[in-house]
């Protein structure tokens, strides 16, 4: 990671608020003890990530991730735009009122600077942070227990993700998807992804697929995932037809173009995303499978 967690120089804390249509991020001043705790959270996050794996795989929007999984996304990826904006934002406005109306608060974040001037942004969904507010807390005062009237927030043990100058290191993919508004971003990216895929696979008619995916998040996720693969342009037309035939995806032909009916679009996208495959272990009985989660071997 392009940051030294043992040489933190400045710590800025803030919260993200959902103001209807837009997410806003505000800085809130915190004292030295809270800054120390936030630094410890970042260290704990990085340690947990390294415990899971030292070689994280790239985050894929179509993949079914587990609750805690160390994956990464390059900061210049289209899906990282919101997090990149937060990481690169400077002079964030200070607003102590940002802690009012906690229902609108969806995350909290910390921007660290190390001794070499490098930046690290850490972010966490604020479920537990504001959850304590609704609890009835009591404190030992004088010689009896009393209800605590003040607002109390609770920091978590770690963050959902860390962002350095190159990558977003994700510990909880669901947290990243929520704060990064991935669903909306993926749906919005459908047209662009189709344009790229159409250029790479000119023998496939994508018009129907675009219309289908523009309102269906799962199909849109497949498209985003397929687009991020390096080998798309090298897909062979005949091999694609053969794989579709073998896995039960019906393809129509319009001249040289392959046309996919609405019923088979998901199957076709699964083929392109290497999630639909055939296994021949029993003689004359090929078996077809779909993989919600898969890992490339070698």
């Amino acid at each position, binding site marked *: 990671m392009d940051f030294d967690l043992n040489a933190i120089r400045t710590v800025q804390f803030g919260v993200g608020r959902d103001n209807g249509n837009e997410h806003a991020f505000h800085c809130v001043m915190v004292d030295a003890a809270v800054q120390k705790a936030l630094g410890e959270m970042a260290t704990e996050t990085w340690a947990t990530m390294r415990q899971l794996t030292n070689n994280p795989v790239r985050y894929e929007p179509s993949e079914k991730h587990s609750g805690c999984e160390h994956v990464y996304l390059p900061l210049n990826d289209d899906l990282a735009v919101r997090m990149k904006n937060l990481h690169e934002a400077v002079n964030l406005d*200070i607003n102590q009122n940002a802690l009012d109306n906690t229902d609108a608060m969806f995350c909290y974040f910390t921007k660290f600077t190390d001794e070499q001037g490098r930046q690290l942004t850490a972010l966490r969904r604020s479920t537990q942070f504001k959850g304590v507010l609704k609890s009835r807390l009591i404190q030992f005062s004088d010689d009896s227990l009393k209800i605590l009237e003040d607002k109390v927030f609770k920091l978590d043990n770690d963050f959902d993700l860390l962002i350095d100058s190159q990558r977003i290191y994700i510990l909880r993919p669901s947290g990243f998807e929520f704060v990064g508004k991935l669903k909306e971003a993926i749906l919005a990216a459908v047209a662009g992804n189709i344009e790229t895929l159409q250029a790479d696979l000119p023998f496939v008619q994508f018009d129907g697929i675009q219309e289908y995916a523009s309102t269906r998040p799962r199909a849109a996720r497949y498209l985003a995932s397929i687009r991020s693969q390096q080998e798309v342009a090298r897909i062979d037309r005949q091999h694609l037809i053969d794989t579709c035939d073998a896995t039960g995806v019906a393809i129509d032909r319009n001249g040289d173009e392959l046309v996919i009916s609405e019923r088979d679009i998901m199957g076709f996208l699964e083929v392109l995303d290497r999630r639909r495959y055939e296994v021949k272990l029993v003689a004359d009985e090929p078996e077809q499978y779909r993989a919600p989660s898969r890992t490339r071997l070698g």
Partner: protein
Amino acid sequence: MKPGKEGLKLARLMMVLSSISPLFILWAVRGNNLIPEYWFLGFCLFMVITPSLYLWRRIVMARKQKQIRPIVVGKAEDHRDHLLVYLFAMLLPFYSADLSAWRDLAAALVALGFIVLLFWHLNLHYMNFLFAAFGFHVFTIYPKTDNNPLSGKTSVVLITKRVAVSAGEQIEAYRLSNTVYFEPGGQ
């Protein structure tokens, strides 16, 4: 959510009072016939020491609590001329004001109250003779204009010993209020 407020009301008020403390030194030297010497001197001394002590305490607290904010400079303007305006527009007229009658004294204090209120609300609490006396310069830092929708758009005041601040530079300064920052070193 309410819009972001400047916050630290008491600290800002004390900083404004601290900025007018030279006037009380001048009044103390001049004296007054209406009020017994020890009361008048005591009041002037209180108005000089208390706000300046509070300002000093605010700086110490900001450093102790590590209330540092990295500020990226878009454009910087040196505002040493503000101090001259402050000196001529406020200190000298008040010093030369006739305080020999109760009504004159009351009028001067009310006018001073208006100025304090104005300084407080317009965030002019950075205009402090003490900063200048200790060799600090005052810069208005305008934010960097980038395409990032999340970057701050508010300009801030930086009190520093630097003689120049370059565009694009990142400065780490202590927060005295949400719009006034103090860089202790910076030479």
